[in-house]
């Protein structure tokens, strides 16, 4: 069981990591990237089950990352979750076409993130 957190904010990654641990993800099962390009490199090197990605990031945005993943068949089973300040209906509609499991808008409560993680992590672990 491995998850990848993609966000350009170190404090936001730390918060998501803390909640993920509380949701039962082991510490060594959590990888981090600060943009979409870094995430792609990690996805190529490691077997990753769940992707938690921000949208607005430098170099390669979360939307660009998700579009790239949608073109690659090897990632068809990767569970995709967006965690973003951008909660516009236009962005949510775009996400619907990119095989996104859940869309969590910032600010979020730790309980809301834990709920999303329990939906995606528990089925994979079992």
């Amino acid at each position, binding site marked *: 069981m491995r998850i990848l957190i993609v966000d350009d904010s170190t404090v936001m990654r730390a918060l998501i990591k803390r909640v993920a641990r509380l949701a039962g993800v082991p510490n060594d099962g959590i990888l981090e990237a600060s943009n979409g390009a870094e995430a792609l490199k990690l996805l190529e090197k490691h077997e990753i089950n769940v992707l938690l990605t921000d949208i607005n990031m430098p170099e390669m945005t979360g939307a660009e990352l998700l579009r790239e993943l949608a073109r690659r068949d090897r990632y068809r089973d990767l569970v995709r979750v967006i965690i973003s300040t951008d909660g*516009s209906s236009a962005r949510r509609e775009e996400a619907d076409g990119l095989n996104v499991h859940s869309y969590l808008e910032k*600010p979020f409560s730790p309980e809301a993130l834990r709920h999303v993680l329990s939906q995606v992590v528990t089925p994979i672990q079992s």
Partner: protein
Amino acid sequence: MCSAKLSPQFSPEAGVALMNALVEVGEQSFFAFIESCDETWFEELASTADQWMIATVTFTGEQGTGALSCLFPDDLVLDLFDAFTGRDPAEGPPDPREVDDLAGEFANMVCGLWLSRVMGSHTFSLGSPRAGRVPKPASTVPEGVERFLVVVNNRPMIVDLTVHAANRTSEAIEV
């Protein structure tokens, strides 16, 4: 009651949406109580703050461009940092880069949430937040800026907003 005087570029509804975004971000992510305040109360609180930080996020969208800046005293940013990260203040001061990052993330969340509310059916993108130290802010509001004075956990904070509507410089952003 919001103290900002809104220009024709900025509708009253957009001002209310900004205050709502501030309150929601404060409560959800920072366990902070945020309320608007008048200039007298603000000046009283600001007189006790010497070191200030600014965090700015720029945005572009189909309806226009702009920037949102949050100006807060250093001690308030540290309080928000502790609330967000769960850091124990007894651990010693946090890495200044992480404090900058936190200040930027605060501005980022406020701006993103506000834009999601006022531009719901239109796309927008946010620039990377920038943060740094500034002198105590002047009470004079720069031209073209909408200023909101708020109190966060009994500490002063300023939110400055600049909006340029796309090809319609005298029209309000629709909400």
